[in-house]
């Protein structure tokens, strides 16, 4: 089966090694979560997969295709990326932002095709943003804005979605609505890799978890077993308890 594979990936920022021989497999149809304390290398990992950061060692594959062998606009058809705290620099309207998701398919000097239009419409629909399509992004609430940005990602129709902390700064209602969209993407066969800080959400809603610390994978496997009190203690230096509903409650710093 085609999946996203990282084989012994190492990345340095300047002289500092940030990721050290990280291996990872994310399967289509699954929600994969990357957890770990601040500075563990989670965002660096996502940026390395997109090809923005050069690899010092190792390789990244989508199926049999080595991603670093592809031209940048080809990579965009396989991998779409939504960074943490995405800033939109001009008050563009929702539709033109979502259209940017189709840029990897754009031929030089060509207009957008019917296929592009359809993908934009579908993305707006899935995120419930159709009614907002001509609104400037500056007039949206934080939750609406998060869904608009998600629609830009979905419009790419890429095989792999890399999403860096999409739930921060959202109220519980919008957190659930974003999670539902991600779940639907996975059901449709997308490979969804998400960085999430909320350990309860990570444990309860995601299939597979990778726990990172100091640029290395501490544990990986089914989210429920990886995010155990022992592993969390080792990664975060905190004591936690698992609640009745499978969430995680912080008890104390160790």
């Amino acid at each position, binding site marked *: 089966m085609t999946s996203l594979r990282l084989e012994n990936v190492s990345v340095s920022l300047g002289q500092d090694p940030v990721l050290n021989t990280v291996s990872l497999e994310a399967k289509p149809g699954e929600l994969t979560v990357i957890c770990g304390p601040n500075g563990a290398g989670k965002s660096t990992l996502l*940026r390395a997969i*997109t*090809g*923005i950061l050069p690899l010092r060692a190792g390789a990244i594959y989508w199926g049999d295709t080595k991603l670093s062998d592809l*031209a*940048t*606009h*080809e*990579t*965009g058809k396989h*991998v*779409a*990326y*939504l*960074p943490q705290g*995405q*800033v*939109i*620099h*001009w*008050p*563009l*309207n929702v539709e*033109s*932002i979502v259209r*940017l*998701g189709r*840029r*990897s398919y*754009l031929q030089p000097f060509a207009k957008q095709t019917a296929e592009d239009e359809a993908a934009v419409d579908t993305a707006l629909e899935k995120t419930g943003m159709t009614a907002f*399509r*001509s609104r*400037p992004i*500056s007039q949206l609430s934080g939750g609406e804005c998060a869904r608009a940005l998600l629609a*830009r990602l979905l419009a790419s129709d890429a095989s792999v979605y890399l999403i860096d902390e999409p739930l921060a700064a959202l109220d519980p209602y919008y957190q659930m609505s974003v999670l539902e969209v991600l779940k639907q993407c996975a059901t449709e066969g997308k490979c969804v890799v998400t960085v999430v800080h909320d350990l309860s959400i990570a444990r309860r809603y995601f299939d597979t978890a990778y726990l990172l610390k100091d640029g290395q994978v501490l544990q990986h496997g089914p989210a429920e077993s990886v995010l155990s009190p022992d592993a969390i203690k080792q990664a975060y230096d905190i004591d936690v308890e698992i609640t009745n509903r499978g969430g995680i409650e912080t008890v104390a710093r160790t």
Partner: protein
Amino acid sequence: MRNSSADGGLLLYIILLTLLVLVSVSALLIGFTPLPVGDTLAALFGIGDDEKIQLIVQEIRLPRTLMGLLVGASLGMAGAALQGLLRNPLADPGVIGISSSAGLGAVIAIYYGYAASFYLAVPSFAMAGALAAIVLLYVLSRRDTSVLTLILVGVGINALSGALISLSMSLAPNPFSLADMVLWLLGSLANRSYTDVSLALPFILIGVVLMASSDRSLRALSLGEDVAATLGVNLMRTRLLIVLGSALAVGASVAVSGTIGFIGLVTPHLIRPFVKYDPARLLIPSALAGAVLITFADIMVRLLPTDREMKLGVLTALVGTPFFLYLVIKTRRNTR
């Protein structure tokens, strides 16, 4: 709904082109010597029988008007392209140091007296100054994909050129060359000939084409450099197109007109609401609007009852600054 943006765009183009024709014709009709309208228009097409009017219209007013259109288009588009690339609404052609290094070139030509010995000395030296700034900018910032480095290097070049201009002024060999330097730096379109137009035209055309070809990348850059890169934008190529394009167009403009401020900064702000803040659709309307604004300002300096004609750069700064402040306050209120 789908096509409304295209229709709005068409209307904007129609309005800007109409204004462009109106100000251009007015610029030909209005001048230091009052001329009858009919004779002026006849002289423009070479069918009048008064040779003096023909000379004034074809050799003085027409090149001045053409020069204004070219300079305005360069400044307007360069402002829009640089603000888009740097994602900074305060960017203008001055921010990457091109204007002041072109100014430095001109000041050097005046300092050493080359200006007196051959006609094109000042614009040629100014072009050389702008090109030197591009090379310096490229060498110092080529290794870094972040635009912040580009801005900082540009600010550095700007400051260095400014310091060298001040040095030349304080060491000026005589009061006349000092006055020449100051007046030249203030910016003007007066007494420009076809030689000036043909010197600047090729550089401005190439510059405008380079900038305009980066429009789609500018739109993607609204999402930041990282995401734009994942969408297939070649960051270094986009930067090269815009920096080189704006340097060629603005360098050539400064070379023939001196430094004319605020048009590059203000024009994009003026147009942005009409293109829904899309940095890609901003480029050509900004060029048209810049051409309209400069030509209009150049008519005003001829009409104002000053003893000597006021310098164009002085007028654009005088009117541009309060207007810019008004825009800032107004748009801040709207987007908050």
